[in-house]
């Protein structure tokens, strides 16, 4: 770690030379040994090994490591304001840094809901103690009640990068249409949590043989697919509309998105590590660490998602990091809170499951964490390390074997099904604005 005292007192940020690493920058089509010089919060130079002349204040030895643009998580619940017992901006971003993320988009389903300029400003105050960049996704409707749109223009001006009512869908057809129309005018993505809640009442897992056996009411794939299909149809017919489908989990919804993309609609989507790793068959003994929304789906849904990752249809891998206190999870499965943590396991699950098992090239995986998400929400200057970009860098060891110990997580919460998993691939250093904020 650099000394924060030093960076505060000196006028100039120390420059950092990342030497000897293998750079993967999909946006710049680079997959080769390169040194990277960071200066004044920007990428000053990218050059083949030992070609960067002149000194740097600090050097980072990246031999044997992959150097990539800083990872961006489009979907995290940092729980502030109002639920600091689950997570805070400080603890959530510390976990993000440990997982190799330099930017995190925080969801507005907090208490109260982030539907105003005031709360966006509050979230962005230095007092929150963010370790990495925090981008605010604001509520699409007032209090996320689905009735009246928020002031998109004001929210965007205040720094929000997208809108959503995540946790629940923007359900009403006319409200969703209005949101996409206004979003289209402002070039503002509308993020949809696709769930027909009429079909999912009292449901706690995916509808299938397993839910029947366990006596749990199941959420059908149709509950997701029908909303995605409607939204894609709307997006195809509204000029400039930007639809982003959050945590897509079913093969049927994927078909709609593929159709939208083919029709050149501005439709993007994310998938989560747990949906490409686990299925509804994996939950044992009513373990609520396997309970999230959307739920773990069938094997064929997972295979469809893996195929979309392999062929590059997926835009981004996002965590849907959803921390909960122990007492909110250690209860009857049907009553336990939805959601699992994910910031510290995303990279390793991607490398373990997608690269090592499914042979998806590392460059493609890096794209899902960098250029892909940056494109979804227009994060200018991020997602690539071309000269002049913001100096956010993720340095990871794709071969490092390690065991995830939830008890040692930097998140405030421990609700993960991956506790004790042996994984391959780990962030070694996380650099935000030219400064190393995590190394390990």
């Amino acid at each position, binding site marked *: 770690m650099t000394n924060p005292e030093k960076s505060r007192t000196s006028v100039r940020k120390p420059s950092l030379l990342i030497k000897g690493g293998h750079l993967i920058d999909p946006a710049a089509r680079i997959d080769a040994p390169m040194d990277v010089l960071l200066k004044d919060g920007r990428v000053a130079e990218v050059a083949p090994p030992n070609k960067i002349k002149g000194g740097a204040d600090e050097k980072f030895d990246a031999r044997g490591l992959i150097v990539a643009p800083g990872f961006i998580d489009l979907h995290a619940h940092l729980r502030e304001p109002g639920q600091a017992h689950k997570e805070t901006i400080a603890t959530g971003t510390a976990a993000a840094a440990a997982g190799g993320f330099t930017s995190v988009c925080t969801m507005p389903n907090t208490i109260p809901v982030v539907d105003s300029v005031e709360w966006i400003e509050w979230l962005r105050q230095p007092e929150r103690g963010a370790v990495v960049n925090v981008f605010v996704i604001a509520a699409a409707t007032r209090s996320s009640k689905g009735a009246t749109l928020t002031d998109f223009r004001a929210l965007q001006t205040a720094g929000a990068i997208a809108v959503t009512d995540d946790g629940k869908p923007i359900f009403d057809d006319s409200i969703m249409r209005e949101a996409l129309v206004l979003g289209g005018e402002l070039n503002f993505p509308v993020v949809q949590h696709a769930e027909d809640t009429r079909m999912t009442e009292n449901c706690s897992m995916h509808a299938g043989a397993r839910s*029947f*056996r*366990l*006596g*749990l009411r199941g959420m059908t794939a149709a509950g997701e697919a029908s909303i995605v299909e409607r939204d894609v149809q709307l997006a195809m017919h509204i000029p400039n509309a930007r639809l982003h489908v959050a945590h897509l989990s079913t093969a049927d919804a994927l078909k709609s998105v593929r159709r939208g993309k083919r029709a050149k609609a501005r439709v993007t989507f994310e998938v989560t590590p747990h949906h490409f790793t686990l299925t509804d068959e994996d939950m044992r003994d*009513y373990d609520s660490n396997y309970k999230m929304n959307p739920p773990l789906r069938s094997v064929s849904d997972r295979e469809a998602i893996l195929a979309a990752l392999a062929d590059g249809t997926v835009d981004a891998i996002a965590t849907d990091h959803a921390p909960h206190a122990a007492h909110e999870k250690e*209860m009857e*499965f049907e009553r336990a809170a939805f959601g699992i943590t994910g910031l510290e396991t995303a990279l390793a699950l991607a490398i373990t499951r997608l690269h090592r098992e499914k042979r998806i090239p590392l460059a493609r995986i890096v794209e899902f964490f960098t250029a892909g998400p940056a494109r979804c929400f227009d994060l200018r200057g991020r997602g690539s390390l071309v000269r002049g970009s913001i100096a956010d860098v993720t340095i990871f060891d794709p071969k490092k074997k390690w065991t995830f110990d939830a008890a040692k997580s930097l998140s405030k919460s421990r609700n993960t099904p991956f506790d004790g998993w042996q994984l391959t691939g780990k962030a070694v250093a996380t650099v935000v604005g030219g400064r190393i904020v995590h190394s390990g």
Partner: protein
Amino acid sequence: MNPARGSLLGIEHLEAAEILKLLKFARRMNPDKPRPLLKGKRVFLLFYEASTRTRSSFETAAKVMGAHTVLIQSIGSSIEKGESLLDTGYTVRAVGADIIVIRHPNAGAPYLMAQHLDIPVINAGDGLHEHPSQALLDAYTILRNKKTFKGLQVAIVGDIFHSRVARSACHLLSKFGVKIILCGPPELVPEIAATLAPGVRVTRHIEDALRGTDVVMLLRVQTERLAGLKIDLAEYIARYQMNPARLKMAKKDAVVMHPGPIIRGLELTSEVADGAQARILEEVRNGVPTRMAILARAMGKMR
């Protein structure tokens, strides 16, 4: 933490040999002869849901064996004040419970209890999931009437989707090679029900279910659990109600079973409920020795 030895959380993961051992032991239990295998033990009955048969039957079984019983119901306890299931469990353990018998509206609730407590937990019905003591007493009743499971065909007619009794019965009977036919409308008997266990199939036609059947198990339409599902009761009665004419389609010596509560005029007529082939009250009677065996097993006294 693994569930304590002697816990009975479901039938699905119970071995056939263990089931036979339980049933054999149950035959040696006589509710009219006190048998102090549980002398001085405390059996806590946690009932988060209404129950007549199961509760009184477990309580009687425990008392016949010399145990003290304490009944805790959601109404009139700290559960009403919002105490969590686990905290209630820890409390009951601290009071000195040796065995917990739990009935709960949520599937898996007994698992949660068993994973956190060091005493045996007995599932007295959890949501839509399982009702193992009912399946055991039904197996006991079938064996009393049919001597063996070999070659038997059992039809289960009615609301399978909402029935923990049906799930447990399928698991149990399947382990002994019994042919099981589930019958009812798609809303109550989804096709996926056939994946429950080997030897289970689904039919929509009552004649198909009854032909060649040795045991007709009827289930109540659980109107309180329908959760928005619309069932045309008149249509249900027309297609599936058990009446004397329909019962004739089954084998001559077929018996009629029902876990109760029965709703006369809905899933069955009074003629069937009170008829010579009905074993509905016998099931209730058999509940006591079966639960005596379950409690003895919980305390490691099933020898």
